[in-house]
């Protein structure tokens, strides 16, 4: 029953509309990357072509993860979890350092980023834990002890790299799953209150200066208009100057003259909003909101508990990436290095997103099989 096989029924149940949505977002992303990197003058394979390779690789991962019944993931999720925690420890000891952070493991021919894989694995492990939790009521504090340990360990390891963005994302994803499972109001209030001292302690003992600066500069970008506040200011200028209909493809002055930082990766959305204006921005937000609601719909229609939790987790992962990234480039959140799923340039992000999408497709196509 749970064996990996593909039968005609599954192909018939494949969610082609969702695939069309995903490919639309990715295709717009490729055009946008073309524009964002037009001024780079790089030799070698251009970014938009490389992004196409990543999309093709991502799609093959979608096919791969579809072909394995997601119920198998439940059985192996703790194993995966254990392996990933181990890998995170290895990263700390023997990771490859780049730009002040140790995030990668070198496997000779390519590098992997365990924290990125951890997002997916954490969703699986959390889903499994709550799917098997036998309590007749909403979650209370004592029910959360083990999940906190389950999540807290990897989050701390990721923060140690340091990669605050990913750590926050992992925590947010797990929190979203918990909310879905249901937390009693009293517990929710307790957690909210205990967050205050936690933030205080975190600020004073944990955050690095550059991270503090990012937050302070976010709260007041004029604090250092040429330094780290520069990114927020320039990105807001790019988005705002796009106006209702934008400056046109390849005609964004902020991006073409390279006033934007990281404009093909984290700030890709600013490039798009500058060149396509409010109309373009609204178009992208619509695509994304449909994607998210679709994901939640998959969770709703899923007939088993694990699958439903898994779908919510994957959807939460996409949701938080999208919200934090767009919120950042339009000046609502501090600058954290979070790419826009399916849209920003980058292999890691594309693979994680596509694996997540694969899981959603997987759940969707097997909803009648239970």
């Amino acid at each position, binding site marked *: 029953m749970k064996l990996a096989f593909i039968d005609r029924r599954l192909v018939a149940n494949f969610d082609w509309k969702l695939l069309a949505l995903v490919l639309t977002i990715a295709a717009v992303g490729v055009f946008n990357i073309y524009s964002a990197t037009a*001024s780079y003058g790089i030799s070698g394979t251009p970014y938009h072509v490389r992004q196409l390779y990543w999309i093709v690789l991502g799609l093959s991962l979608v096919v791969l993860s579809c072909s394995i019944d997601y119920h198998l993931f439940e059985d192996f999720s703790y194993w995966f979890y254990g392996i990933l925690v181990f890998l995170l420890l290895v990263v700390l000891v023997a990771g490859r350092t780049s730009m002040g952070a140790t995030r990668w493991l070198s496997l000779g021919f390519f590098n992997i980023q365990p924290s990125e894989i951890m997002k997916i694995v954490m969703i699986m492990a959390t889903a499994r834990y709550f*799917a*098997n939790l*036998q309590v007749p009521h909403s979650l209370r504090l004592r029910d959360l002890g083990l999940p906190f340990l389950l999540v807290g360990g990897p989050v701390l390891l990721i923060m140690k790299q340091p990669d605050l963005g990913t750590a926050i994302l992992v925590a947010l994803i797990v929190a*979203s799953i918990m*909310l*879905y499972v*249901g937390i009693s109001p009293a517990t929710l209030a307790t957690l909210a209150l205990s967050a205050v001292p936690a933030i205080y302690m975190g600020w004073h003992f944990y955050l690095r200066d550059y991270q503090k600066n990012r937050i302070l500069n976010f709260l007041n970008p004029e604090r250092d208009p*040429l330094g780290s506040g520069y990114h927020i200011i*320039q990105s*807001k*200028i*790019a*988005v*705002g*100057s*796009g*106006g*209702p209909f934008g400056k046109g493809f390849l005609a964004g*002055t*902020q991006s073409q*003259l*390279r*006033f934007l930082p990281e404009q093909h990766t984290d700030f890709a959305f600013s490039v798009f*909003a500058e060149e396509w*204006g*409010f109309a373009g*921005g*609204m178009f992208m*937000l619509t695509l*994304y*909101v449909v994607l*998210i*609601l679709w994901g*939640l719909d998959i*969770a*709703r229609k899923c*007939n*088993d*508990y*694990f699958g*439903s939790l898994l779908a*919510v987790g994957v959807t939460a992962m996409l*949701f938080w990436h999208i*919200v934090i990234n*767009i*919120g950042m480039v*339009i*000046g*609502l959140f501090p600058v954290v290095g979070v790419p826009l799923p399916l849209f920003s340039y980058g292999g890691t992000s594309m693979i994680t997103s596509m694996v997540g999408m694969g899981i959603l497709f997987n759940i969707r196509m097997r909803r009648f099989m239970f």
Partner: protein
Amino acid sequence: MKGERFIREERAFGKRLVWLSVFAATVFFLLLLRLWYLQILNAGDFLALSENNRLRLVPLAAPRGAILDRNGKVLVGNTPSFSLAVIQQDVKDSDTLLSRISRLLQMDVDELLDKWEKGRKRAKFYPIFLASGISRDQVELLEENRLHLPGVDVEMKPVREYPNGTLASHLLGHIGEISEDELQRAEFSAYHAGDYVGKGGVERSWEKELHGADGGRQIEVDARGRVLRTMSEGSPTVGNTIMLTIDLELQKLAEAAFGAQAGAAVAMDVNTGEILAFVSNPGFDPALFTGRMPPEKWKAYLEDKRHPLENKALKGQYPPGSTFKIITAIAGLEEGLIDANTTVNCSGSYKLGKQTFKCWDKHGHGPVNLRRALKESCDVYFYQLGERLGVDRIAKYAKKLNLGAPMGIGLENEKGGLIPTAEWKEKKQGTKWFRGETLPVSIGQGYVLTTPIQLASMIATVANEGTVYRPYLIKKVLDKDGAVLREFGPTAVAKADVKSTSYRLVKEGLLAVVNESKGTGGMARLYEVKVAGKTGTSQVVKLPARKGGIPYERRDHALFVAFAPYDKPEIAVAVVVEHGEHGGSAAAPIAGKILRAYFEGKGVIKRPVRETEDETGADEEDAEATPAVLRREGESVPGGTE
């Protein structure tokens, strides 16, 4: 088994999913609102900011207009100079940049830092000039290291060039960076900090014509400040050219005639008022004021007893000494108190009440008439005449010849001198005029003060017998292509209504001063042209006659006024040699040289044989080097008032 709990709570899960969906949709709606705020409500502001990011206005400095002499020879021009400018917005790490520049140009880091800090306060994207006047080699060095010098730009700017060095420096003036005070004035409302303006002389007074209008170039730059293309360009308008009435050759020779002596000379066209030479000696180097003045140079200028920074011709107010006897004589003739034959017996001094007024010649001149009194500069003759005239009648004729007020030659801060009257004293000091105070006035001492320009104008008026022309310096204003925009001609400010016989009698006396034996002005004599003139020696402080060591700053001033040719006057000259002691020995030779130069220039006199020039040159140097000798000589060639 797993499904049981799920099925039991299916409805609760479904409800929570609805909530999650609503939450997600709400968050997206908030993002959309934010986009609305940025892209619809504030699009204009952000568009302006993005334009501001990429477009910059680079000011293009207008070359100042040139200043030419009357024949079109360049007195002040422009020459290209390379400066190093930095756009501060393009500099991320100023410390590293400044230390690199200091290494490449071998300049002091502190000096660069100072300029940088000052420049930072200025307008956005306005270039900060860190070094000017850098050589072509240094420019090449900077170009080679361009990649390591973000924000650095080498700009070519025209700077002032003075082909004749210190020549006519007071007249031409200098330029310098506009000061904070000047920026506040309405006159400079179009100027920016860092602009250059005229700071003195013609440069200052004719700033409006010379300055031109700065242009600007709108350029597109990328985030690193690299210039991508020029969007539009408004080219600068070159300032207008000013053609002076000065004759470069005459000016050169007039300045040379002073040697190291301090003083002033003004040579004027008798029939127009054009100033042909305008000397204030010693001069200064105007080029030093444009850039960074070496402190030791500045100190030397300030400490020089001869005051090189003072415009003596324009602002120097000197008692005219015996040159003023011309006025007293005219007053006497006009008022009918004397005629050509009126004789006074000079015993060497004149008593008025208890006071004794000495003649410069203590042995006395014996019986003197007007001609002899002028020729030998007898003080007693004029004491007696002055006493009979009274101060107000002397003042009346002085003012007819336009003394006592600025002439309005068109330079700033021209001084007016002083012609005292009884009323003036009453007002100024609250006491009435004493008869004893008239006597020094009659020989150009006491309260009387005149400027070299006024003296030149006075003698010119005598020469042309009554027309007071306003002395003027600007002949033409030309545009950059040489087309005449404005032309200036003679302006008669007043007609000094004095009988021509009075002028003739005085002029005869002045001819004798230079050309007859015992005349005090013999050293101004030219054999080819008849020169008429009057010596003057004016007291700086009243001192008992003391042989030898009178300190420099207490020695008398030497003056000489002259015109030539006697029969058909063309040129008038006034010379003041500060602390030169005797008009006849110190000032007359200089006036003579100026006149000679003028007539040589006209071809009336042939260029001299070398020896004679050497001789006079040696004379003059002796005079400066050994004042004691000069004093003794001064007694034998006397010239003025005790």
